[in-house]
């Protein structure tokens, strides 16, 4: 069984969905304690508030506040349980599609404006 190092192989890695569509990067790894057992990886989180919190709690709060102002906070940061990770190679491939998460919420919000400006 292959071993993976959390910081080297999982954290900050590119994340793609079942169709190889980019969802973002592993911005935070969530560890949890099981009763009477060792800590284990529970989930990964994707999104600016997860990323910001890693840099500094204040940065995380500012990112969260901005998401609130722009009404983008629902389902964010995107939390994906570890059993939805299909494999970890060049990127972290998830067993779900982008549409099942709020990872591309900002992209979807901006798309109509950009489409109008670029003519396509």
């Amino acid at each position, binding site marked *: 069984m292959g071993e993976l190092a959390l*910081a080297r192989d999982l*954290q*900050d*890695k*590119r*994340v793609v969905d079942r169709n190889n*569509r*980019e*969802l*973002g*990067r592993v*911005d935070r790894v969530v560890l949890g304690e099981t009763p009477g057992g060792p800590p284990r990886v529970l989930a990964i989180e*994707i999104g*600016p508030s997860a*990323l910001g919190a*890693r*840099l500094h709690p204040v940065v995380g709060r500012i990112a969260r506040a901005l998401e609130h102002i722009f009404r983008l906070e629902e389902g964010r940061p995107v939390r994906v349980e570890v059993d939805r990770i299909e494999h970890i190679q*060049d990127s972290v491939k998830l067993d779900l599609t982008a549409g099942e998460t709020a990872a591309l919420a*900002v*992209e*979807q919000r*901006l*798309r109509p*404006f*950009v*489409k109008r*400006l*670029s*003519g*396509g």
Partner: protein
Amino acid sequence: MSAIVDVVLGIVTSIGGFIEAGSISTSAQAGAEFGFQLLWAIAIATVMLAVMIEMSGRLAAVSRRTIDAAVRERFGISFQWVPLAAELGIDTLLLSAEIGGAAIAVKLLTGIGFLWWVAPVGLLVWLILMLFGFSVIEYGFGLLGLVTLSFVYAAYHLRPPTHDLVRSLAPSMPHHDLVRYAFLSVSILGATVSPYLLNFYSSGTIEEKLTEKELWVNRTTAYLGICFGGVVSMGVLVTSAMVLGPKQIIVDSYDQAALMLVPVFHRWGIALFACSLGVGCLGAAVEIAINAAYAFSQALGWSWGANKARSDTARFSAAFTLITLAGTLIALLGFDPLRLTMISLALTVVIMPVIVLPFLALMNDDRYVKTHTNSAFGNAFLAGLTLLGALLAIIVLPLEVLGG
């Protein structure tokens, strides 16, 4: 055949795309104030750039990652936010200097004050980014930039003493103004080895789908293209030394620098200078803006690519829109573009270790470049020059600002 076409096109566009506000201003000032004495600085900076560009292409072709993507994965965001913030800050200043430079080019042709042209130039930069793909951005400006060969022709036509030129390729101490000499040598380094070029080139390698099998294309384009491009920069310095130096004109404005082409090209001199400055600055502005979008997108994991529909990369498009707006607004504040360029270049050298050293670490990590790691000499050369340059910049920049 296609690979050979790629190499030729790559070399030609490297030559045409070499010159921009930084290289014109530093080479013009260096030539006017110190004759040929700073040719060695251009030579060393050019070799450094060629080595780094080859490395960035190699990293991208082998690892299928750009520099910013690889730095995020390898070192994490807790480290990366420092070089990313530094690079984006300096790039915004450089962008405004390039927009200002392009606006001055239009002023040279029309006589109408440069501030009137800043907003239209900013808008043009944004439109090019919105409407065109990577090939047009890179090759289009590279081919148009061949107008800068007028500096090489002018330098040749003025018949500089060959012996003096060759001697000036070795570092020497100046006869006057040591602080100014050191500041200009640091600025030449910053103008030539612009950090944005590294990630831009690695992103281009991914955009053009260059593979590990085509590393020879990358190597040939980087070394030949960049080295020939350096000759254009030397052309500016030599022409300035031959024309402006004897008149003791100190270049404090692009209007003064433009005079260097008049003795050779007469009534076409100003127009050729303006076209060279305009095309060079516009091309650099487009590259800086798109590289900022590359950097953000790759570090944060957004979808990116100049060859994709803009609506499929909305955050990427928003990023280059915002930085273009920021650069244009700073340029509209009316800072003298030449002065802004010089300060930005010196700051570029100060932050260079933070960008180059992690890059060197990646180039020695076989998880990214497999068997194509750097040689010990290459590592020592780049690390040494980068740290020396930064130390010199930290000492010289305050002295130049206080003394000036």
